[in-house]
């Protein structure tokens, strides 16, 4: 069974701030890491290949530095990986991102199973996986808690819906989005890290894609546009409760009492 896991490099900290005076984004260092949600899907892929054979590959889209998350996935057991990187991909929204990844996947090869994490910590949209599946023309299931079994060309999965846990079978090939916190991701092996060679990480740019219409990628291929970014509105009805700790505790108590919550 050959599995592809879609992963992403995200900022190490989510503390990006806007300077209220200049409107400039304040960059909090450039440290970045693997999207933590992707660790669960990599672990899911590894344990499936341990059970059923086959290999795990990973794919990401981003700047050349995104190579480091591919290397990390190789240290967790993936055989190799791909970085989709091109300035033409810059400024992509969900639609253009999903389309770019689907084109990349077509270029990389055929897989029985494609896994995604629940969402990323920087975009938090949880939508790219479903759109990739649509562009690949395969079924997808999100909120997957576990893959119980793979048999007769079908994956048997348990899924967390809003108020139910559903067991279902899905015809392969398919795309699954793993839930958060469903397993204990293995640690990357530093022994492997020393042996990772450049040929294990492939870079694919726009020039290699089948669809050569630049209007399908990056900002041009995005349906949504960011009109403006601004600091969140501040609450105008503001009071402060001052005094020593006893007075402040009394203040909270009075608020609770006046709302008949005590």
């Amino acid at each position, binding site marked *: 069974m050959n599995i592809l896991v879609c992963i992403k490099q995200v900022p190490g900290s989510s503390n990006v701030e806007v300077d209220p005076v*200049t409107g400039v984004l304040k960059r909090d260092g450039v440290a970045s890491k693997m999207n933590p949600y992707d660790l669960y899907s990599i672990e899911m892929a590894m344990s499936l290949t341990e059970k059923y054979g086959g290999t795990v590959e990973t794919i990401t889209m981003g700047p050349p530095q995104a190579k480091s998350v591919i290397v990390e996935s190789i240290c967790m057991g993936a055989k190799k990986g791909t970085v989709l990187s091109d300035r033409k991909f810059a400024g992509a929204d969900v639609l253009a991102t999903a389309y770019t990844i689907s084109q990349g996947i077509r270029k990389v090869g055929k897989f029985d199973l494609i896994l995604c994490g629940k969402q990323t910590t920087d975009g938090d949209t949880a939508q790219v996986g479903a759109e990739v599946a649509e562009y690949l023309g395969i079924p997808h299931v999100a909120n997957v808690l576990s893959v119980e079994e793979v048999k007769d060309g079908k994956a048997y999965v348990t899924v967390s819906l809003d108020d139910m846990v559903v*067991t279902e079978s899905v015809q392969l090939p398919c795309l699954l989005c793993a839930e958060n916190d469903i397993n204990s991701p293995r640690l990357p092996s530093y022994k492997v890290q020393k042996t990772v060679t450049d040929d294990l990480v492939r870079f694919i740019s726009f020039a290699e894609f089948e669809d050569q219409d630049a209007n399908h990628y990056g900002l041009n291929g995005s349906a949504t546009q960011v009109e403006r970014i601004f600091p*969140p509105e501040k609450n105008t009805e503001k009071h402060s409760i001052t005094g020593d700790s006893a007075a402040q505790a009394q203040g909270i108590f009075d608020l609770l009492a006046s709302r008949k919550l005590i």
Partner: protein
Amino acid sequence: MGQLKINQNLVNAENAKELVKLCPFGAIGYDGAKLDISAACKMCKMCIRKGPAGVVEYVEEEVAAPTVDKSLWKGICVYVDHAGEQIHRVTYELIGKAKELAKVTNHPVYALIIGKDAAKSAKKLLRYGVDRIYVYEDEALEDFRIEPYTSAFYDFIEKVKPSSILVGATNLGRQLAPRVAARCRAGLTADCTVLEMKENTDLVQIRPAFGGNIMAQIVSPACRPQFCTVRYKVFPEPKPSDTESGEIVLMQLAKEALASNIEILRKVEKPKDVDISEADVIVAIGRGAKGEQIRAMAKELADLLGGVLACTRPLVEENIMDAKHQIGLSGRTVKPKFILCLGISGAVQFAAGMKSSDCIVAVNTDKNAPIFDVAHYGIVGDLCEILPMLLNQVKEAQSDVQ
């Protein structure tokens, strides 16, 4: 649409350094001679607006920009999220918002319901002032499976051509909306916290972005329909009217469109957990609520007030609290009558999940913490002193009553 162009002849060591520092995504590099923009660029155009004049330019590309005849797309549609006959309350909240938006453009409001006994459920919506309720009903639609549901949704869009589509950000809606949006090659904005309508029918979608303390205002000016998802408890639920109104329209779908590669084998109801989004009173703790003792007191206070204990993302990441108790964009959205935030700095992702609460009280030692921007009552003080005193007072008051 276009791209960024660097005028290398204007580049010098000084302004190059400035640009490298300015770019929030680290996409600008300088090797001593040439300035370069890498694939890390997010096209935020900060380098043009705030950088040295003329060095980076935005060049419009001579491409046939996609256009759409907006007058062909009419109406605001709400997808009806339901499990069997139980309609998810986010649906009513979205209908309320859709009616508000529709007033600007004088558009009709539609509801779309897909399911096995969908027509029966559709009747419940007649008291909410929807103009037309479109119904796809079939045995094959009994359980949610992505392919037939996408087919029905897409069929509706092709036939009715709604301008905007609002979907509840439930586990189901989050799977269905992107799949349908991708099929339409349309824009989709997740977890909007504010929706507005322009007179030209562009839906203004506002949400927290870049994972940080920034709000982004998003539009899809050259695309129809416009999709967005909104979480439960973000908008107020409208009151049903005494009289029924609106028309139920039964839709037909070809049998082959109902085919699926997915088979539902077993369904088990989830045990009824604490649902923080339903609570009237919440005591929320963040990283500043240090130590087991403080957290135990917070829990006790929540219990005494008949509320629940909730937390921020870091506490979940550190395995101190369960993810079910997390407030924020990656957790739950809450709208209690009273929320006490203890030791929470108030990142926009957290604030987005609780800022429509009726009364927000925050305690933090840092007077500059952003939580004080959303709090109605701010207390700059020491949690370790205030919490025990408050707890004692509440205990005393309750024992007096008994």
